[in-house]
Protein backbone atom coordinates (compact mmCIF):
# COMPACT_ATOMS: atom_id res chain seq x y z
CA UNK A 1 0.00 0.00 0.00
CA UNK A 2 2.92 2.33 0.73
CA UNK A 3 4.14 1.98 -2.83
CA UNK A 4 0.77 3.22 -4.09
CA UNK A 5 0.41 6.21 -1.80
CA UNK A 6 4.03 7.22 -2.36
CA UNK A 7 3.26 7.79 -6.03
CA UNK A 8 0.33 10.07 -5.28
CA UNK A 9 1.87 12.96 -3.38
CA UNK A 10 0.23 16.37 -3.55
CA UNK A 11 2.73 17.36 -6.21
CA UNK A 12 1.68 14.41 -8.35
CA UNK A 13 -1.99 15.24 -7.83
CA UNK A 14 -1.26 18.77 -9.05
CA UNK A 15 0.73 17.54 -12.06
CA UNK A 16 -1.86 15.05 -13.31
CA UNK A 17 -4.58 17.51 -14.42
CA UNK A 18 -1.96 19.69 -16.11
CA UNK A 19 -0.63 16.61 -17.91
CA UNK A 20 -4.17 15.65 -18.93
CA UNK A 21 -4.70 19.14 -20.35
CA UNK A 22 -1.43 18.92 -22.29
CA UNK A 23 -2.52 15.57 -23.72
CA UNK A 24 -5.92 16.81 -24.83
CA UNK A 25 -4.86 20.18 -26.24
CA UNK A 26 -1.86 18.84 -28.15
CA UNK A 27 -3.67 15.71 -29.30
CA UNK A 28 -6.64 17.74 -30.50
CA UNK A 29 -4.38 20.19 -32.36
CA UNK A 30 -2.45 17.43 -34.10
CA UNK A 31 -5.59 15.53 -35.00
CA UNK A 32 -7.62 18.43 -36.37
CA UNK A 33 -4.98 20.84 -37.66
CA UNK A 34 -2.14 18.64 -38.87
CA UNK A 35 -4.00 15.44 -39.74
CA UNK A 36 -0.85 13.33 -39.68
CA UNK A 37 -0.76 9.61 -38.92
CA UNK A 38 0.58 10.35 -35.44
CA UNK A 39 -1.28 11.34 -32.29
CA UNK A 40 1.07 13.19 -29.91
CA UNK A 41 -1.57 12.85 -27.20
CA UNK A 42 0.59 10.98 -24.69
CA UNK A 43 3.19 13.55 -23.76
CA UNK A 44 1.50 14.28 -20.45
CA UNK A 45 0.92 10.60 -19.73
CA UNK A 46 4.55 9.61 -20.23
CA UNK A 47 5.73 12.68 -18.31
CA UNK A 48 3.66 11.71 -15.26
CA UNK A 49 4.71 8.07 -15.54
CA UNK A 50 8.37 8.96 -15.59
CA UNK A 51 8.14 11.55 -12.78
CA UNK A 52 5.67 9.86 -10.46
CA UNK A 53 5.49 6.17 -11.21
CA UNK A 54 3.50 3.52 -13.13
CA UNK A 55 0.15 3.88 -11.37
CA UNK A 56 0.13 7.67 -11.62
CA UNK A 57 1.06 7.38 -15.30
CA UNK A 58 -1.65 4.81 -15.98
CA UNK A 59 -4.25 6.95 -14.21
CA UNK A 60 -3.23 10.01 -16.22
CA UNK A 61 -3.64 8.10 -19.46
CA UNK A 62 -7.01 6.61 -18.56
CA UNK A 63 -8.41 9.89 -17.23
CA UNK A 64 -7.15 11.82 -20.26
CA UNK A 65 -9.15 9.62 -22.60
CA UNK A 66 -12.27 9.53 -20.44
CA UNK A 67 -12.28 13.27 -19.81
CA UNK A 68 -11.68 13.99 -23.48
CA UNK A 69 -14.64 11.76 -24.26
CA UNK A 70 -17.10 12.79 -21.57
CA UNK A 71 -16.17 16.31 -20.49
CA UNK A 72 -18.96 18.84 -20.81
CA UNK A 73 -18.00 21.26 -23.52
CA UNK A 74 -14.92 19.50 -24.84
CA UNK A 75 -16.19 15.98 -25.20
CA UNK A 76 -16.96 14.00 -28.30
CA UNK A 77 -15.02 11.95 -30.76
CA UNK A 78 -14.05 8.38 -30.27
CA UNK A 79 -11.11 8.45 -27.94
CA UNK A 80 -12.85 6.96 -24.88
CA UNK A 81 -12.44 3.22 -25.52
CA UNK A 82 -8.71 3.71 -26.05
CA UNK A 83 -8.34 4.60 -22.38
CA UNK A 84 -6.98 1.09 -21.93
CA UNK A 85 -4.12 1.76 -24.33
CA UNK A 86 -3.41 5.08 -22.65
CA UNK A 87 -3.29 3.34 -19.29
CA UNK A 88 -0.78 0.81 -20.60
CA UNK A 89 1.38 3.59 -22.04
CA UNK A 90 1.43 5.37 -18.68
CA UNK A 91 2.22 2.14 -16.90
CA UNK A 92 5.17 1.42 -19.18
CA UNK A 93 6.44 4.98 -18.82
CA UNK A 94 6.49 4.48 -15.08
CA UNK A 95 8.48 1.29 -15.52
CA UNK A 96 10.99 3.03 -17.77
CA UNK A 97 11.24 5.86 -15.26
CA UNK A 98 11.96 3.50 -12.40
CA UNK A 99 14.56 1.72 -14.50
CA UNK A 100 16.31 5.06 -14.88
CA UNK A 101 15.91 5.16 -18.65
CA UNK A 102 15.46 8.92 -18.71
CA UNK A 103 18.50 9.65 -16.60
CA UNK A 104 21.30 11.49 -18.24
CA UNK A 105 24.22 9.18 -19.04
CA UNK A 106 27.28 10.88 -20.44
CA UNK A 107 29.57 8.37 -22.08
CA UNK A 108 32.81 8.12 -24.01
CA UNK A 109 32.92 8.70 -27.74
CA UNK A 110 33.28 5.02 -28.65
CA UNK A 111 30.29 4.00 -26.59
CA UNK A 112 28.26 6.80 -28.13
CA UNK A 113 29.10 5.74 -31.66
CA UNK A 114 28.26 2.14 -30.84
CA UNK A 115 24.93 3.22 -29.40
CA UNK A 116 24.16 5.39 -32.42
CA UNK A 117 24.83 2.52 -34.79
CA UNK A 118 22.77 0.10 -32.70
CA UNK A 119 19.88 2.55 -32.61
CA UNK A 120 19.93 2.86 -36.38
CA UNK A 121 19.97 -0.93 -36.72
CA UNK A 122 17.06 -1.33 -34.30
CA UNK A 123 15.02 1.18 -36.29
CA UNK A 124 15.80 -0.74 -39.45
CA UNK A 125 14.72 -3.99 -37.82
CA UNK A 126 11.44 -2.46 -36.67
CA UNK A 127 10.75 -0.87 -40.03
CA UNK A 128 11.50 -4.07 -42.00
CA UNK A 129 8.19 -5.95 -41.46
CA UNK A 130 6.28 -2.80 -42.28
CA UNK A 131 8.25 -2.36 -45.47
CA UNK A 132 7.60 -5.91 -46.49
CA UNK A 133 3.83 -5.72 -46.12
CA UNK A 134 2.48 -6.34 -49.64
CA UNK A 135 0.03 -3.52 -49.22
CA UNK A 136 2.96 -1.14 -49.39
CA UNK A 137 5.30 -2.92 -51.81
CA UNK A 138 2.96 -4.06 -54.55
CA UNK A 139 0.96 -1.25 -56.13
CA UNK A 140 -1.38 -3.81 -57.71
CA UNK A 141 -2.47 -5.12 -54.33
CA UNK A 142 -2.16 -2.10 -52.11
CA UNK A 143 -3.49 0.49 -54.48
CA UNK A 144 -0.76 2.68 -53.04
CA UNK A 145 1.35 4.54 -55.56
CA UNK A 146 4.92 3.33 -55.50
CA UNK A 147 6.22 6.52 -53.90
CA UNK A 148 4.72 5.41 -50.57
CA UNK A 149 7.27 2.63 -50.27
CA UNK A 150 10.06 5.12 -50.92
CA UNK A 151 8.49 7.50 -48.40
CA UNK A 152 8.51 4.85 -45.69
CA UNK A 153 12.13 3.93 -46.45
CA UNK A 154 12.99 7.62 -46.24
CA UNK A 155 11.14 8.01 -42.94
CA UNK A 156 13.01 5.02 -41.52
CA UNK A 157 16.35 6.41 -42.69
CA UNK A 158 15.57 9.89 -41.36
CA UNK A 159 14.46 8.42 -38.04
CA UNK A 160 17.66 6.41 -37.79
CA UNK A 161 19.78 9.47 -38.56
CA UNK A 162 17.88 11.71 -36.16
CA UNK A 163 18.14 9.28 -33.25
CA UNK A 164 21.80 8.51 -33.94
CA UNK A 165 22.49 12.22 -34.33
CA UNK A 166 20.72 13.01 -31.09
CA UNK A 167 22.86 10.49 -29.24
CA UNK A 168 26.09 11.85 -30.71
CA UNK A 169 25.28 15.57 -30.42
CA UNK A 170 23.97 15.47 -26.88
CA UNK A 171 26.87 13.15 -25.92
CA UNK A 172 24.31 11.31 -23.88
CA UNK A 173 23.65 7.60 -23.92
CA UNK A 174 20.14 8.23 -22.61
CA UNK A 175 19.03 9.03 -26.16
CA UNK A 176 19.54 5.39 -27.10
CA UNK A 177 17.52 4.08 -24.17
CA UNK A 178 14.78 6.64 -24.67
CA UNK A 179 14.44 5.65 -28.32
CA UNK A 180 14.33 1.97 -27.37
CA UNK A 181 11.73 2.65 -24.68
CA UNK A 182 9.67 4.64 -27.18
CA UNK A 183 9.74 1.90 -29.80
CA UNK A 184 8.79 -0.83 -27.33
CA UNK A 185 5.98 1.31 -25.90
CA UNK A 186 4.74 1.97 -29.43
CA UNK A 187 4.69 -1.70 -30.35
CA UNK A 188 2.85 -2.66 -27.16
CA UNK A 189 0.38 0.18 -27.72
CA UNK A 190 -0.29 -1.03 -31.26
CA UNK A 191 -1.06 -4.54 -30.02
CA UNK A 192 -3.37 -3.27 -27.30
CA UNK A 193 -5.18 -0.85 -29.61
CA UNK A 194 -5.75 -3.17 -32.56
CA UNK A 195 -8.46 -5.32 -30.95
CA UNK A 196 -10.13 -2.22 -29.49
CA UNK A 197 -10.12 -0.51 -32.85
CA UNK A 198 -11.25 -3.60 -34.71
CA UNK A 199 -13.98 -4.65 -32.29
CA UNK A 200 -15.38 -1.30 -31.28
CA UNK A 201 -15.01 0.71 -34.46
CA UNK A 202 -14.63 -1.85 -37.19
CA UNK A 203 -11.07 -0.66 -37.64
CA UNK A 204 -11.40 3.07 -38.34
CA UNK A 205 -11.39 6.03 -35.99
CA UNK A 206 -12.04 9.04 -38.20
CA UNK A 207 -8.52 10.39 -37.83
CA UNK A 208 -5.70 10.64 -40.36
CA UNK A 209 -4.64 7.02 -39.89
CA UNK A 210 -7.71 5.61 -41.63
CA UNK A 211 -6.02 5.93 -45.01
CA UNK A 212 -3.48 3.36 -43.86
CA UNK A 213 -6.20 1.03 -42.63
CA UNK A 214 -8.01 1.25 -45.97
CA UNK A 215 -4.84 0.46 -47.88
CA UNK A 216 -4.03 -2.51 -45.69
CA UNK A 217 -7.53 -3.93 -46.13
CA UNK A 218 -7.21 -3.47 -49.85
CA UNK A 219 -4.03 -5.50 -49.52
CA UNK A 220 -6.08 -8.37 -48.18
CA UNK A 221 -5.68 -7.97 -44.44
CA UNK A 222 -8.69 -8.71 -42.32
CA UNK A 223 -10.01 -6.12 -39.92
CA UNK A 224 -7.78 -6.81 -36.98
CA UNK A 225 -4.61 -7.22 -39.03
CA UNK A 226 -5.30 -3.98 -40.86
CA UNK A 227 -5.70 -2.19 -37.54
CA UNK A 228 -2.53 -3.82 -36.28
CA UNK A 229 -0.65 -2.88 -39.43
CA UNK A 230 -1.68 0.73 -39.07
CA UNK A 231 -0.82 0.72 -35.40
CA UNK A 232 2.61 -0.80 -35.94
CA UNK A 233 3.34 2.05 -38.32
CA UNK A 234 1.95 4.99 -36.36
CA UNK A 235 2.49 3.99 -32.75
CA UNK A 236 6.24 3.35 -32.61
CA UNK A 237 6.91 6.60 -34.48
CA UNK A 238 4.48 8.52 -32.29
CA UNK A 239 5.69 7.08 -28.99
CA UNK A 240 9.36 7.50 -29.88
CA UNK A 241 8.82 11.14 -30.78
CA UNK A 242 6.81 11.58 -27.59
CA UNK A 243 9.49 9.91 -25.48
CA UNK A 244 12.12 12.24 -26.90
CA UNK A 245 9.89 15.24 -26.27
CA UNK A 246 9.49 14.16 -22.65
CA UNK A 247 13.25 13.66 -22.38
CA UNK A 248 13.84 17.19 -23.69
CA UNK A 249 11.22 18.60 -21.31
CA UNK A 250 12.89 16.85 -18.36
CA UNK A 251 16.26 18.18 -19.45
CA UNK A 252 14.80 21.66 -19.30
CA UNK A 253 13.44 21.36 -15.76
CA UNK A 254 15.70 22.18 -12.87
CA UNK A 255 17.07 19.21 -10.93
CA UNK A 256 15.62 20.58 -7.75
CA UNK A 257 12.10 20.47 -9.12
CA UNK A 258 12.53 16.99 -10.56
CA UNK A 259 14.00 15.65 -7.34
CA UNK A 260 10.83 16.52 -5.45
CA UNK A 261 8.72 14.13 -7.49
CA UNK A 262 8.27 10.56 -6.27
CA UNK A 263 10.54 9.16 -8.97
CA UNK A 264 12.84 12.15 -8.93
CA UNK A 265 15.95 10.55 -7.57
CA UNK A 266 16.06 7.94 -10.28
CA UNK A 267 15.96 10.70 -12.87
CA UNK A 268 18.49 12.99 -11.29
CA UNK A 269 20.97 10.32 -10.26
CA UNK A 270 22.90 9.97 -7.06
CA UNK A 271 25.58 12.56 -7.85
CA UNK A 272 25.54 15.97 -6.22
CA UNK A 273 26.23 19.03 -8.39
Amino acid at each position, binding site marked *: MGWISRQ*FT*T*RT*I*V*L*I*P*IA*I*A*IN*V*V*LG*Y*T*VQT*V*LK*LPIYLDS*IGTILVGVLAGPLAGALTGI*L*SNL*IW*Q*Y*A*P*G*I*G*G*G*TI*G*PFAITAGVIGLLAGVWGQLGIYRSRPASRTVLILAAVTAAVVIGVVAYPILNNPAYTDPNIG*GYPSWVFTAIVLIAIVAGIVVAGFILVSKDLAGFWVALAGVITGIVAAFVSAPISAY*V*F*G*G*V*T*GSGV*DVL*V*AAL*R*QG*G*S*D*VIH*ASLGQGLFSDPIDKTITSF*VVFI*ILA*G*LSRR*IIARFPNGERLVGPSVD
Partner: protein
Amino acid sequence: MRRTPVGFYRGLNPTTKLVIALSTAALAFVLRGWLVPLVALLVVGATVVRAGLGRAFVPFVLATIPLLISIVLVNVFLYPGATDTILVIGPLRATATGLTVAGQASLRIVAFALSVAVFALTTPTDDLLADLERRGMGRRGTFVIGAAIQTIPRLAARAGEVADSQRARGLRTEGSVWRRIRGVVPLAGPMISGALSEVEERTMALEARAFSAPARRAVLRPMPDDNVQRAGRWLLGLATVGLIALTVTGHLGLP
Protein backbone atom coordinates in the same frame (compact mmCIF):
# COMPACT_ATOMS: atom_id res chain seq x y z
CA MET B 1 -27.60 31.08 -5.42
CA ARG B 2 -27.66 28.45 -8.12
CA ARG B 3 -31.02 27.70 -9.73
CA THR B 4 -32.21 24.15 -9.29
CA PRO B 5 -32.37 22.43 -12.67
CA VAL B 6 -35.78 22.12 -14.27
CA GLY B 7 -37.20 19.22 -16.12
CA PHE B 8 -37.30 15.54 -15.38
CA TYR B 9 -33.95 14.58 -16.82
CA ARG B 10 -31.97 17.55 -15.62
CA GLY B 11 -33.42 17.18 -12.15
CA LEU B 12 -32.02 13.70 -11.77
CA ASN B 13 -29.07 13.11 -9.54
CA PRO B 14 -25.79 13.54 -11.45
CA THR B 15 -24.65 10.03 -10.62
CA THR B 16 -27.91 8.67 -12.04
CA LYS B 17 -27.26 10.51 -15.28
CA LEU B 18 -23.70 9.18 -15.33
CA VAL B 19 -24.89 5.60 -14.86
CA ILE B 20 -27.45 6.03 -17.64
CA ALA B 21 -24.82 7.46 -20.01
CA LEU B 22 -22.28 4.74 -19.27
CA SER B 23 -24.83 1.91 -19.52
CA THR B 24 -26.22 3.17 -22.81
CA ALA B 25 -22.74 3.44 -24.23
CA ALA B 26 -21.63 0.03 -22.97
CA LEU B 27 -24.78 -1.74 -24.16
CA ALA B 28 -24.71 -0.05 -27.57
CA PHE B 29 -21.14 -1.22 -28.11
CA VAL B 30 -21.16 -4.72 -26.71
CA LEU B 31 -24.60 -5.92 -27.85
CA ARG B 32 -23.94 -5.68 -31.56
CA GLY B 33 -26.64 -5.80 -34.14
CA TRP B 34 -29.50 -3.48 -34.89
CA LEU B 35 -31.88 -3.73 -31.95
CA VAL B 36 -29.93 -2.45 -28.96
CA PRO B 37 -28.20 0.53 -30.63
CA LEU B 38 -31.54 1.52 -32.12
CA VAL B 39 -33.23 1.36 -28.73
CA ALA B 40 -30.35 3.33 -27.21
CA LEU B 41 -30.69 5.93 -29.92
CA LEU B 42 -34.43 6.21 -29.31
CA VAL B 43 -33.88 6.65 -25.58
CA VAL B 44 -31.31 9.35 -26.25
CA GLY B 45 -33.59 11.00 -28.78
CA ALA B 46 -36.49 11.02 -26.36
CA THR B 47 -34.28 12.59 -23.69
CA VAL B 48 -33.10 15.28 -26.09
CA VAL B 49 -36.66 16.22 -26.95
CA ARG B 50 -37.85 16.07 -23.36
CA ALA B 51 -34.95 18.15 -22.01
CA GLY B 52 -35.23 20.65 -24.83
CA LEU B 53 -31.63 20.26 -25.94
CA GLY B 54 -32.26 20.62 -29.68
CA ARG B 55 -29.92 23.32 -30.89
CA ALA B 56 -27.06 22.64 -28.48
CA PHE B 57 -27.04 19.10 -29.76
CA VAL B 58 -26.18 19.88 -33.34
CA PRO B 59 -22.37 20.30 -32.97
CA PHE B 60 -22.14 16.89 -31.29
CA VAL B 61 -24.03 15.30 -34.14
CA LEU B 62 -21.88 17.06 -36.71
CA ALA B 63 -18.73 15.90 -34.93
CA THR B 64 -19.58 12.28 -35.66
CA ILE B 65 -19.85 12.82 -39.41
CA PRO B 66 -16.14 12.44 -40.40
CA LEU B 67 -15.98 9.18 -38.49
CA LEU B 68 -19.20 7.90 -40.05
CA ILE B 69 -17.95 8.71 -43.53
CA SER B 70 -14.73 6.79 -42.83
CA ILE B 71 -16.65 3.82 -41.43
CA VAL B 72 -19.08 3.65 -44.31
CA LEU B 73 -16.46 4.01 -47.02
CA VAL B 74 -13.95 1.58 -45.57
CA ASN B 75 -16.48 -1.08 -44.62
CA VAL B 76 -18.81 -0.94 -47.61
CA PHE B 77 -16.03 -1.09 -50.21
CA LEU B 78 -13.23 -2.85 -48.41
CA TYR B 79 -14.81 -5.43 -46.13
CA PRO B 80 -12.45 -8.40 -46.13
CA GLY B 81 -13.82 -11.70 -47.37
CA ALA B 82 -17.21 -10.41 -48.52
CA THR B 83 -18.47 -11.64 -51.88
CA ASP B 84 -22.09 -10.46 -52.09
CA THR B 85 -21.43 -7.50 -54.36
CA ILE B 86 -24.24 -5.04 -54.86
CA LEU B 87 -22.49 -2.25 -56.73
CA VAL B 88 -19.32 -1.79 -58.71
CA ILE B 89 -17.64 1.59 -59.11
CA GLY B 90 -14.41 1.28 -61.05
CA PRO B 91 -12.03 -0.94 -59.04
CA LEU B 92 -14.16 -0.75 -55.88
CA ARG B 93 -16.85 -3.30 -55.07
CA ALA B 94 -19.55 -2.50 -52.55
CA THR B 95 -20.75 -5.56 -50.68
CA ALA B 96 -23.98 -6.19 -48.78
CA THR B 97 -22.04 -7.60 -45.82
CA GLY B 98 -19.96 -4.46 -45.75
CA LEU B 99 -23.09 -2.34 -45.87
CA THR B 100 -24.63 -4.20 -42.93
CA VAL B 101 -21.45 -3.86 -40.89
CA ALA B 102 -21.19 -0.18 -41.77
CA GLY B 103 -24.80 0.43 -40.84
CA GLN B 104 -24.53 -1.30 -37.49
CA ALA B 105 -21.21 0.36 -36.67
CA SER B 106 -22.64 3.77 -37.54
CA LEU B 107 -25.65 3.21 -35.35
CA ARG B 108 -23.40 2.15 -32.47
CA ILE B 109 -21.12 5.15 -32.80
CA VAL B 110 -23.98 7.63 -33.03
CA ALA B 111 -25.79 6.09 -30.04
CA PHE B 112 -22.55 6.23 -28.04
CA ALA B 113 -21.62 9.78 -29.02
CA LEU B 114 -25.08 11.15 -28.41
CA SER B 115 -25.52 9.50 -25.02
CA VAL B 116 -22.25 11.15 -24.02
CA ALA B 117 -23.49 14.46 -25.42
CA VAL B 118 -26.80 14.31 -23.54
CA PHE B 119 -24.93 13.68 -20.32
CA ALA B 120 -22.40 16.45 -20.99
CA LEU B 121 -25.05 19.01 -21.88
CA THR B 122 -27.28 18.43 -18.89
CA THR B 123 -24.80 17.91 -16.09
CA PRO B 124 -22.67 20.74 -14.73
CA THR B 125 -19.26 19.41 -13.80
CA ASP B 126 -19.35 20.91 -10.34
CA ASP B 127 -22.56 19.11 -9.47
CA LEU B 128 -21.20 15.78 -10.66
CA LEU B 129 -17.95 16.15 -8.79
CA ALA B 130 -19.66 17.31 -5.59
CA ASP B 131 -21.96 14.29 -5.72
CA LEU B 132 -19.13 11.84 -6.40
CA GLU B 133 -17.10 13.30 -3.56
CA ARG B 134 -20.05 12.90 -1.20
CA ARG B 135 -20.20 9.25 -2.23
CA GLY B 136 -16.62 8.78 -1.21
CA MET B 137 -14.46 9.57 -4.23
CA GLY B 138 -12.29 11.80 -2.10
CA ARG B 139 -11.11 15.33 -2.65
CA ARG B 140 -8.03 14.27 -4.60
CA GLY B 141 -10.19 12.62 -7.23
CA THR B 142 -12.48 15.63 -7.35
CA PHE B 143 -9.50 17.93 -7.68
CA VAL B 144 -7.86 15.97 -10.48
CA ILE B 145 -10.98 15.76 -12.63
CA GLY B 146 -12.17 19.28 -11.89
CA ALA B 147 -8.74 20.83 -12.44
CA ALA B 148 -8.25 18.89 -15.68
CA ILE B 149 -11.58 20.08 -17.05
CA GLN B 150 -10.74 23.66 -16.12
CA THR B 151 -7.17 23.56 -17.37
CA ILE B 152 -7.98 22.26 -20.84
CA PRO B 153 -9.70 25.41 -22.14
CA ARG B 154 -7.15 27.57 -20.32
CA LEU B 155 -4.28 25.74 -21.99
CA ALA B 156 -5.97 25.90 -25.37
CA ALA B 157 -6.37 29.67 -24.97
CA ARG B 158 -2.71 29.90 -23.96
CA ALA B 159 -1.75 27.92 -27.04
CA GLY B 160 -3.65 30.47 -29.07
CA GLU B 161 -1.80 33.32 -27.37
CA VAL B 162 1.57 31.65 -27.90
CA ALA B 163 0.64 31.11 -31.56
CA ASP B 164 -0.28 34.77 -31.95
CA SER B 165 2.89 36.04 -30.35
CA GLN B 166 5.04 33.66 -32.37
CA ARG B 167 3.28 34.74 -35.53
CA ALA B 168 3.95 38.35 -34.60
CA ARG B 169 7.61 37.34 -34.57
CA GLY B 170 7.35 35.93 -38.03
CA LEU B 171 6.42 32.29 -37.45
CA ARG B 172 4.48 30.86 -40.39
CA THR B 173 1.79 28.38 -39.40
CA GLU B 174 -0.34 28.08 -42.51
CA GLY B 175 0.54 26.35 -45.72
CA SER B 176 2.30 23.09 -46.46
CA VAL B 177 2.35 20.17 -44.07
CA TRP B 178 6.07 20.56 -43.43
CA ARG B 179 5.62 24.20 -42.47
CA ARG B 180 2.80 23.29 -40.13
CA ILE B 181 4.93 20.65 -38.46
CA ARG B 182 7.74 23.15 -38.01
CA GLY B 183 5.21 25.53 -36.54
CA VAL B 184 4.26 23.11 -33.79
CA VAL B 185 7.55 23.08 -31.87
CA PRO B 186 7.73 26.81 -31.08
CA LEU B 187 4.12 26.54 -29.97
CA ALA B 188 4.31 23.41 -27.89
CA GLY B 189 7.50 24.41 -26.08
CA PRO B 190 6.32 27.59 -24.34
CA MET B 191 2.90 26.10 -23.75
CA ILE B 192 4.24 23.05 -21.93
CA SER B 193 6.86 24.88 -19.92
CA GLY B 194 4.30 27.50 -18.92
CA ALA B 195 1.93 24.80 -17.78
CA LEU B 196 4.59 22.96 -15.79
CA SER B 197 5.84 26.11 -14.07
CA GLU B 198 2.53 26.26 -12.23
CA VAL B 199 3.11 22.95 -10.51
CA GLU B 200 5.25 24.25 -7.65
CA GLU B 201 2.94 27.18 -6.87
CA ARG B 202 -0.20 25.08 -6.97
CA THR B 203 1.36 22.41 -4.77
CA MET B 204 2.23 25.03 -2.13
CA ALA B 205 -1.24 26.54 -2.38
CA LEU B 206 -2.95 23.20 -1.86
CA GLU B 207 -0.71 22.20 0.99
CA ALA B 208 -1.40 25.53 2.66
CA ARG B 209 -5.10 24.65 2.51
CA ALA B 210 -4.64 21.28 4.22
CA PHE B 211 -5.25 19.37 1.02
CA SER B 212 -3.72 16.16 2.28
CA ALA B 213 -5.35 16.31 5.69
CA PRO B 214 -7.36 13.17 6.41
CA ALA B 215 -10.60 14.79 7.64
CA ARG B 216 -13.78 14.57 5.52
CA ARG B 217 -15.17 17.81 4.14
CA ALA B 218 -18.72 18.95 4.98
CA VAL B 219 -21.15 19.11 2.04
CA LEU B 220 -22.98 22.42 1.79
CA ARG B 221 -25.40 21.62 -1.00
CA PRO B 222 -26.29 17.96 -1.38
CA MET B 223 -27.71 16.88 -4.73
CA PRO B 224 -31.28 15.56 -4.71
CA ASP B 225 -31.43 11.81 -4.58
CA ASP B 226 -34.18 9.37 -3.70
CA ASN B 227 -34.77 5.68 -3.32
CA VAL B 228 -36.32 5.35 -6.75
CA GLN B 229 -33.17 6.65 -8.41
CA ARG B 230 -30.97 4.57 -6.18
CA ALA B 231 -32.88 1.41 -7.05
CA GLY B 232 -32.92 2.43 -10.69
CA ARG B 233 -29.14 2.87 -10.77
CA TRP B 234 -28.52 -0.53 -9.24
CA LEU B 235 -31.00 -2.24 -11.58
CA LEU B 236 -29.56 -0.55 -14.65
CA GLY B 237 -26.02 -1.37 -13.61
CA LEU B 238 -26.78 -5.02 -12.91
CA ALA B 239 -28.87 -5.37 -16.07
CA THR B 240 -26.03 -3.92 -18.13
CA VAL B 241 -23.46 -6.25 -16.63
CA GLY B 242 -25.82 -9.19 -17.01
CA LEU B 243 -26.67 -8.47 -20.63
CA ILE B 244 -23.00 -7.99 -21.47
CA ALA B 245 -22.08 -11.25 -19.76
CA LEU B 246 -24.83 -13.14 -21.61
CA THR B 247 -23.80 -11.69 -24.95
CA VAL B 248 -20.11 -12.32 -24.48
CA THR B 249 -20.70 -15.95 -23.50
CA GLY B 250 -22.95 -16.44 -26.49
CA HIS B 251 -26.23 -17.05 -24.71
CA LEU B 252 -27.97 -13.99 -26.05
CA GLY B 253 -28.37 -13.27 -29.74
CA LEU B 254 -30.30 -10.16 -30.51
CA PRO B 255 -31.04 -9.04 -34.09
